[in-house]
């Protein structure tokens, strides 16, 4: 299993343990759609590489969140991945939280 999930009443925290978010890991990431709650946070701390196949998987989570009026965030994103997310305009739909913002979001949704 390359993903672990922590949940509270209104939040889901998804730790991606695979170092690559690519075509091979995309399916597993897409499968967390059913576990998303009001606030869902994707933790990229272990992720070293993301390509367009991985971004497409993340977009499926964005679509699912919007469909249900939920909010999707990212934490522990490298500067390179932030740059790539900006290039494809993903940050409009999946903002990156810093440590304090992340704690506040989880606290609000607990």
């Amino acid at each position: 299993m390359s993903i672990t999930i922590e949940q509270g009443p209104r939040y889901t925290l998804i730790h991606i343990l695979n170092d690559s978010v690519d075509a091979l890991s995309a399916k597993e990431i897409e499968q967390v759609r059913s576990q998303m709650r009001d606030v869902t946070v994707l933790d990229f701390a272990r992720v070293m590489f993301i390509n367009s196949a991985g971004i497409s998987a993340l977009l499926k989570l964005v679509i699912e969140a919007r469909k249900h009026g939920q909010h999707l965030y990212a934490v522990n994103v490298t500067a390179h991945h932030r740059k790539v997310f900006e290039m494809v305009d993903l940050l409009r739909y999946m903002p990156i939280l810093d440590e304090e913002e992340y704690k506040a979001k989880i606290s609000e949704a607990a």
Partner: protein
Amino acid sequence: MSDTVVIRRSGQAGPTSEVVDISIPSDQVFERLVRDGAVAVARWLGFSEERLADMQLAVSEAVNNAIEHGNKNDAHSRVGVRFIVRNDRLAVQVVDQGTGLAASQLTEGRPSIQNKLDNGEESPRGLGIYLIEQLVDDVELQSDEQGHSFIMWFNLTTQGKEGVDEHHD
């Protein structure tokens, strides 16, 4: 034979003639191997971490494009990747065995995520090609009856197009 991965290094040592060839079957599993090869070449050339990450992603996108759109995921068709150092530039050439024109894949502008959200498109078209165009210094695409050849150029004097240092927030 189709599952064979071939890596060759040739040419005289030095900044003007070094060549590394990697040949893989059209299977996503082997794309990771090419990605690792790109990292090794980038480290050998002394790329910054940001420039290395740019190159790794661009190579990944080009190889995936060759596997999916060039060779149509046919594992019997091969993808060749050649790293060539020429003067102060690195060329990464990705060759597939697909047919049909591919030049229209270039310069479509940024794919729209909003279209995907509004219209339920499965995947924004051209996302990988768009990223390549943003990350490399120059790109060239040729097609003939043998297949497609996608060449990405990296200026060795450039340290990342955006000049971003690698760190976690």
